[in-house]
């Protein structure tokens, strides 16, 4: 596949075929030279990574819904696995608030944090609705998936997509991925898996996600805000400032009333 500047690229992550092998996590760490966090036993199903952060740019989530006495085979939904990643949102909350403009949209239409520009204010951490960004303890700057910006510039597909043995993670031009996803959804629906749904494929969630998903349950089950709750930080500017202005007016009047009060001595 030829990777061209000026075109939109992304990931289509099909959770219905994820087997939870974590090859993506390993490939990501290897390519990006991420040391990983101190190993810890999380006692959380097969998940020992815990979360996306400065050291984990891919994280395979496990949602264990296997009943104690299985009556059916589960039909692919008793154990949900999902390789999570930065969504490279079209309307990116992180980018919206960043005061240094360290967060940019690249020539591949992905979201990238410039390490030499970031000053570690952490405003983006408070903004990203997917808990993607972490602060690297050594550099003090904000880190997350770069969608292998360096590999794309060199004409290579991202490490995670290349390593994924089941093609749960597919990389490519966004338009092409969307077509693939639509076909896959139709296939699943025709097989009776009516709960299957696409997340971030259209513009309902943050104007569309360059890294979008096929889910086997509703978004909330995977820890993803649904379309109604996918809201940008800037929504609160008007309310916040209007509240402040009203308080300022009342406060100034109250102060004047107090200070202009004269004694009658």
């Amino acid at each position: 596949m030829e990777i061209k500047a000026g075109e939109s690229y992304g990931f289509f992550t099909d959770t219905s075929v994820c087997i939870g092998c974590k090859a993506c996590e390993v490939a990501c760490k290897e390519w990006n030279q991420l040391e990983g966090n101190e190993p810890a036993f999380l006692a959380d199903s097969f998940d020992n990574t815990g979360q996306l952060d400065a050291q984990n740019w891919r994280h395979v989530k496990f949602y264990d819904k296997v009943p104690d006495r299985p009556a059916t085979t589960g039909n692919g939904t008793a154990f949900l696995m999902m390789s999570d990643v930065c969504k490279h949102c079209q309307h990116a909350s992180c980018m919206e608030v960043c005061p240094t403009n360290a967060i940019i949209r690249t020539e591949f239409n992905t979201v990238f944090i410039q390490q030499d520009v970031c000053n570690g204010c952490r405003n983006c951490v408070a903004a990203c609705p997917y808990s993607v960004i972490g602060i690297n303890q050594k550099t003090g700057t904000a880190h997350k998936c770069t969608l292998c910006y360096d590999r794309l510039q060199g004409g290579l597909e991202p490490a995670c997509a290349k390593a994924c043995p089941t093609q749960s993670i597919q990389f490519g031009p966004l338009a092409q991925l969307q077509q693939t996803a639509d076909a896959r959804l139709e296939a699943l629906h025709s097989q009776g898996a009516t709960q299957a749904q696409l997340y971030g494929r259209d513009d309902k969630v943050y104007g569309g996600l360059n890294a979008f998903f096929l889910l086997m349950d509703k978004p909330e089950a995977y820890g993803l805000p649904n379309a109604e709750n996918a809201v940008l930080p800037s929504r609160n500017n008007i309310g916040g400032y209007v509240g402040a202005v009203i308080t300022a007016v009342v406060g100034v009047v109250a102060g004047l009333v107090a200070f202009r009060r004269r004694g009658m001595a």
Partner: protein
Amino acid sequence: MFLAAEHFVRAPDWEWFILGYFFLAGLSGGSYVIATLLRLSGDPRDEPAARTAFYASFVLILLCPVLLTADLGAGWWKFWHMLVNVTPGNAGLNFKYWSPMSVGVWLLLVFSIFAGLSALGAWLADRRGREGPPLFGPLSVAFNLVGALAGLFLASYTGVLLSVSNQPVWSDTWTLGGLFLASGLSGAAALIALLTRYRREAVYSLLRLRMADGYFSLLELILVIAFFVTVVNAGTGARTIATAPLWALALVGLAASLVGLRAEGRRMRPSGGGGGGAAVASVGANAVLVSVLVLIGVLALRAAVIFSGQ
């Protein structure tokens, strides 16, 4: 607009430095506003208290950049990246009106200039032994008015900054900007009241500073109620439980100044005067206590909000 958002967001770990900054920015902005309002009172005998407030505003604002830069993960010397875009090929100034942190950095700079010049003006006037109205008369009052606008912004934007995020509690309410402003004004009035102890002529304004503090606290109380209504409505009210002791401290501060308001109101009614000698003497001792409680409350309120959200 304020949805009962499900929050899957990570905390930014804004802790002690940011708390300190929010506290000092609120007091500094508030002090400047109070100094300006005292000048607008039209009574030259309020000038000593006004000058005290300008000094306070300046000293406090000096500490703010120290705290802000100390909090930056990548080192304090990268603070200027907030002002100047260092992205290769994209050089220019950084200003995003939709990001309160970006706006706030500029306003902090602008306000510091006003606070510095106003403190200098007060010092020059003090040195020349000038009593009464400020140097340059109406021109300097106009200057103060613009500075006071910046002060109002500085004392409030920190609350808006918290709201403009996807954090639970913070982004679930519109009240934080107003709440921080009201409490900053109240804290500043308490601080100036406390400082009048060190400047005899400023004692003239003491009773009315107490009154103003009471009014500001009343406003703050209304906003605290609005805060809880909005947050509970959004379904994140339970997050404030862990910070209950801090909320309690904030309410003690509020109650102290409201009790003060009642007492001062009574004192002013008969023939107490803006600052009758006997009245002032009797108010002295508990004024210290009230001021200290109010200031602790102002700090606790910010801590309660900061730690409820993350």
